[in-house]
């Protein structure tokens, strides 16, 4: 039983990281209709930047913040220079973001090498706490989970309770009408893309404490994010929450209890959802 609780907590931590990555991905898709294949590469670069920042200044939190801001900045530059040019051309967007993956990964390989790195949490977060029932669980994982929940709540507040959030949601409904209301939709696009990149960067920094940062980690996390958003519903924030929980928990149980079937546990919900509810659990059917 205790083992099961530990695995559940591990699954929740994984879900937290998946949520950070997939919420940004789904937000960008929902508002801009862009499938950003470079989202995983942004995650990995964010992790690496956090790693180097922590080495340099010796503070984990500074590392997370720098990673997030650096990726937000990268997002602004990418959106303004590259993405903007291909708006509406789905193939061009896919190829351009795929091309970015190669460029970013090669740069990362040149700077950080190919050996797996992982981020070290500070002081007390490296210790463990004994939970009721005698379960010993690492503080760091609890903390990651806690941060993911806090960020999730902040995002929820931003999207549901502020005017900026209302503009973003209105943009998902009808972009032409938003601009006819006097709102500069292009600026909204840039901000949303930057926010997506920020979330990926923070996800990489936090993910780097649990998963390792190495070439290919970007493809892995992108796969997770894709499965999450397909299960939850592409473009839906609530869908990203639900999808992360389902995929995080199932994939962790799979790895822990049926390692031979780990991939089955990962893809089974995907296939099931596609069969029964192709728009995703909380997705809307295309209008």
């Amino acid at each position, binding site marked *: 039983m205790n083992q099961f609780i530990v695995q559940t907590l591990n699954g929740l931590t994984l879900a937290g990281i998946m949520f950070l990555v997939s919420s940004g991905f789904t937000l960008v898709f929902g508002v801009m209709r862009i499938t950003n294949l470079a989202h995983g590469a942004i995650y990995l670069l964010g992790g690496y930047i956090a790693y180097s920042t922590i080495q340099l200044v010796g503070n984990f939190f500074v590392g997370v913040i720098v990673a997030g801001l650096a990726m937000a900045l990268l997002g602004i530059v990418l959106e303004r220079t590259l993405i903007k040019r291909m708006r509406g051309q789905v193939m061009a967007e896919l190829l351009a973001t795929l091309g970015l993956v190669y460029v970013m990964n090669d740069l990362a390989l040149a700077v950080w090498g190919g050996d797996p790195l992982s981020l070290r949490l500070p002081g007390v977060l490296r210790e463990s706490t004994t939970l009721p029932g005698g379960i010993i669980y690492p503080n760091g994982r609890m903390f990651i989970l806690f941060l993911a929940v806090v960020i999730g709540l902040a995002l929820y507040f931003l999207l549901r309770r502020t005017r900026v959030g209302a*503009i973003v949601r*209105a943009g998902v*409904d009808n972009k*032409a009408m938003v601009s*006819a*209301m006097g709102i*500069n939709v292009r600026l909204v696009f840039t901000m949303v893309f930057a926010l997506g990149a920020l979330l990926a960067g923070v996800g990489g920094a936090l993910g780097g404490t649990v998963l390792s940062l190495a070439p290919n980690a970007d493809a892995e996390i992108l796969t997770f994010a894709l499965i999450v958003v397909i299960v939850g519903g592409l473009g839906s924030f609530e869908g990203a929450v639900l999808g992360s929980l389902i995929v995080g928990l199932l994939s962790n149980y799979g790895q822990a209890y049926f390692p031979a079937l780990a991939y089955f546990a990962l893809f089974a919900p995907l296939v099931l959802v596609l069969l029964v509810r192709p728009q995703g659990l909380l997705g809307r059917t295309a209008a």
Partner: protein
Amino acid sequence: MITVDDVHTYRGLSYVLQGISLQAEDAQCTALLGRNGMGKTTLIETMMGLLSARDGDITLDGTSLRGKEPFQIAKRGVALVPQGRHVFSSLTVEENLTLAARGNGEPGAWTLERVYDLFPNLNRRRKNRGSDLSGGEQQMLAIGRAVMTNPRVLLMDEPSEGLAPVIVDKVGEVIRLLKQEGLCVFLVEQNYGLAIETADRLYVLAGGQVVWQGSPAELEAADDVRHLHLGV
């Protein structure tokens, strides 16, 4: 006042507007009538900057809107009530209204309270999502959302489409109120009755061109134009 001067607009390959000129004055309702597919929405979308004209110019109180983005045109004081209403379905009624609310610094400016006074139904449903509203309520919301930007020019694209007669009457009442307040209302309609009752000046569109213009009384008298181009 908004002026359309020899505007030509394509939709894909089809040459829809073939040199349209017209003018809508302040404190008046100017109506454009025409059968299905004649290009009424194309003209409204060109005026809003959602489609770009191949040639010609549109001026707002003397300044050209050529090459301007829709959001820039909106900020200069043009608001749109689009065909099919297009309220933001995942936003609440109140969010729809406040999304782009802009004051104009004048005492009688449109506020949430004024919109709720005019459309009490919206007040009752202010926490509901746009998608939960009836067609009539959605039309009230689309109008409310547009006036909340305190525009100088209001473009309305078939606001009576698919609505019950009492609600069409309400739309007419609102148009008269907006005129009284000095707004320039440009109304595209297929509902002949609504147009004739509210408009001060009418244009008839056919074959991509303005084929007739005049006052309501003149249109009532022009049997041939009504039969040929409007089917009434």
